[in-house]
């Protein structure tokens, strides 16, 4: 019995290792590791549930097959469902903003509530796929309550899954609109799933001046700082220079009372 178990286990490992992947039409981006610090100063919450690399985007892909588009956000840490939400991950939440029409000024230039970011009008977003470990019903209610004016542009996948280091979800291609996904502009905003969001925040975790057990640190106690840990930047090739590009994009200025003097403004990244 024991020999059989050992043989079967080793055979399974070998079979898995020999497996190969192949995909259809796809758009892929890379992001450098070690830039999960927002504008360069942000730090993780102190609770051990937030593992090093949990909010560090290393890759993003859109894969189209038939009438479905699958988006994948890969991070620099194995995903864990520490809060038993059922989807294979817990602490992350990612927003995938897409500029589908490429027209300046067409779309939203305001980020989603709780992110405290703007978008450059050249790359105003038309659609946003929200990758949350929370049940879709709860996310939908949050969107309807806190982002009603953007509701029609926010796409909530029926299910979002985490496996190994990748968070993925499939959506109907028609929900994204017409056009060639390879020509679209993309921006991925890495945030953290907050089950007890503050005020009008769309289930985002706050960034404060000092990190707390469940608060990011290195920012401002007000809402003038971008509540964003990592984004795509530059040409999305994973080059180290993209770290500086990210930090520049996320630069912000605050007034003394914590209100924004200058909000961070994000740009879209295009496949070259």
């Amino acid at each position, binding site marked *: 019995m*024991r020999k059989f178990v050992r043989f079967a286990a080793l055979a399974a490992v070998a079979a898995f290792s020999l497996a190969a992947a192949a995909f259809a039409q796809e758009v892929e981006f890379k992001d450098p590791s070690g830039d999960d610090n927002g504008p360069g100063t942000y730090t993780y919450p102190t609770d051990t549930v937030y593992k*090093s690399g949990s909010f560090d985007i290393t890759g993003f892909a859109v894969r189209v097959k038939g009438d479905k588009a699958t988006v994948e956000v890969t991070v620099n840490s194995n995903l864990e469902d520490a809060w038993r939400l059922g989807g294979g991950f817990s602490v992350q939440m990612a927003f995938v903003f897409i500029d589908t029409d490429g027209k300046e000024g067409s779309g939203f230039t305001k980020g989603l509530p709780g992110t405290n970011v703007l978008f450059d009008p050249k790359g105003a977003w038309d659609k946003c796929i929200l990758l949350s470990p929370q049940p879709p*019903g709860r996310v939908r209610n949050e969107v309807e309550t806190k982002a009603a004016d953007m509701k029609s542009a926010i796409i909530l996948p029926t299910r979002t899954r985490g496996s190994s280091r990748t968070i993925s979800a499939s959506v109907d291609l028609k929900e994204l609109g017409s056009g060639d996904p390879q020509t679209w502009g993309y921006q991925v905003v890495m945030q953290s799933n907050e089950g007890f969001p503050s005020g009008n925040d769309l289930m985002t975790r706050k960034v404060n001046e000092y990190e707390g057990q469940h608060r990011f640190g290195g920012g401002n106690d007000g809402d003038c700082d971008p509540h964003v840990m990592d984004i795509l930047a530059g040409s999305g090739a994973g080059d180290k220079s993209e770290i500086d590009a990210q930090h520049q994009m996320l630069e912000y200025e605050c007034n003394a009372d914590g209100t924004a003097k200058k909000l961070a403004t994000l740009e879209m990244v295009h496949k070259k």
Partner: protein
Amino acid sequence: MQSGRIRATAVVVAAALVVTTSVSLAEESKLKIAGTTYTKWLWGNMRDDGSLYNFTTVPGEGYGDNGQGSEIELFILAKVSRAVEVKARLHSRFNQNQWTNFGGWGGPNPPTVPCVGGDCGEMDPRSNQYVKLRGVTVVVTPGYKWIDAATIGASDFGMFDPWVIGKIRYIDRDNGSGVLFQGSAWDRQLTYDVVRISLPRLWAGPNYTTGEFTAQDAAYGVQLKQTFSPKFDLREIFQYVNDMEVVGTDFDLDDGREVSQRFRNSVVGLAFGFHPGSAIDVGGSYYNSVSDSNSLYAPASFGIGGFSPVPAGKLDDEAYYLNADFNDIAGSGVTLRVQGFHIGAQYVSMMAARRESDVLLTEGHDAAYMYPGPSNAAFGVFSNNPTRLGIGGWDGNAQQLATINVDNEFTDFDEPMAETAIGWEGATITPVWTKGALELSGEYTYLTYDTNWQAFGDDSRAVNSTIYPTMEGDTGVGHNFRTAYAPFQDKETDIALAKVKYTFDVGKGLDVWGKVKTISETDERLNEERYLPYQPGDCPGGGVACANVVRNYSPGNSTSSIYGNPGVITVGANTGYQWKPFDDISDDDRDLSYWMTQVGAGYQLTNDLYGALEWNHFDADLEDGNTAMQAYNLHEMASGQHRKDIFAAKFKYNIGGAEFGFEFQYNMAEFEPDFGGGFVPQVADVAISQAHNVPLGSLGFTGRFGGWNSLEDRDFTQYRMKGFMKVQF
């Protein structure tokens, strides 16, 4: 002169008021209040209604599978200034506050003690809809270079290390209180956490108590983290627990009173992380612990069924693990995680995580078999010890912890079980392959044990006078969640499993999943003849009484203290021994062949409603000692064939900020005992039938301590339901 002084004082006071007012306006306190209400429904055919939790072992507390109750929690947060924040919670607990209590008017006056099921009504806080103050914390961020934040008050202290200072929860997440200082240096390449935690008197000492003098008992912790680069980091942690008592012989009170140590425990740990790139990640930790229980105040030894969160006496040991993750190997989508680990038998960290963490990579054991008996009862051979969770146990697999101080109290069946991993050493490999909507994963774990020993590893002591608390014992199909020690052990375990998840592109997507898991385990337990309790031929058989000539394994010590000889009985025409004499080293052998199969499917029925159906089948062929061993005379024997089916229907529903959850289970199980021969079965009379809930006239035998083990096949049926509603506001 005096009037001048008064005028001057008035001017100063007025100026101060103006300044204070302007500062106050600038730093206006922002009080925020939010809340959650939680309502639970329990229903089941065990018909227990002791409280609105399925499981507890705490004496005097109720448990049950029936009832309805509501609780509310108010979160209070005030940002007093840029530097000061105040947090607190007001939380009503349902505990025994079933709706049938009619607002707390549910019991007789005077109350009947112990209060269970709300029958003390207004006279007991657990059933009069009491509200507790929770989580009072002040966080000071003074803006000094050397300190980022001082947290004064309640916390779950989840920023440390589950092997040393883990998340502290006991029903609530923040029952623990202390003073925590956190800071950084060198552009945050170095961070520190320094804490003094007031020692929880409920469980943080030998015998689950910190003695009589408790108010100054504390745990102290220091954690340093160095991030040398994104590729390499180090962490050092130190913990010291100090449990003091007032010296009872100090009668001179004029110079105060002397104190002495009841219990102390120190742990040092070093951890590293090496992250050369996204393809490979390596990390590991090493811990060394020392603990000392003072026998003046704490137990010096335990019998064969002792309970304590720490072994007795002076102990020292180590624990360590090494993890290596290989991600997306050669672009194949395959991820391999490998872990090697060792947790010493005497590794003690009193403040290690008791429930809220999972320190090992392996799935470990399944929670459907959580206690020794076929019905999931502990001490089930004795009357009035029925199963508490029933044959279904808890859902899913266990999470492993580096302590025997495991806490599964006040949980429901849909929550995970925590199990001790003290003494475990071995390795785990878990491959995962994902392609589109398909995920395949697996695990292989090999376990051996630092607790593989004879006579608790100390021949000089009697086996029923050990430093090790054995808790619920190590018998039964599964792993009794807080049992790490057995008098004799020579055990090996293999765990292997394969899982598949796939989402069919049908409608809103049909989720299907499946799993096959097997556990193969052998334990030769007592494996040297010198430990047999009596001399060879002591019980000749043929109706002849045993001579009771003891065999000592060391001067004055014999296993006859726990494996006493049977008497000769006559039942009908049969005369022989009441149980098989322990005369062969194979009498206590364990050999488990365990298979678990799971299939399930789920579908998003509407935008707000997700439903799933799941079937779990368990099949265990278990040899777990014969009637000579008798499950250490304390538990129902489990040798034989076990089959169990758990059918579950689960639903999640969200509407307008309210979250509903529902799980119904229909569970069936069979047990065909195979206790071996060499004894004369007895017949249950009226007294046995009533005391042990067995059919009149059924076969069984009365054991050494008077417990009854049934020899009849058993069929179990259980249905149970839990529903909840949670609303944040």
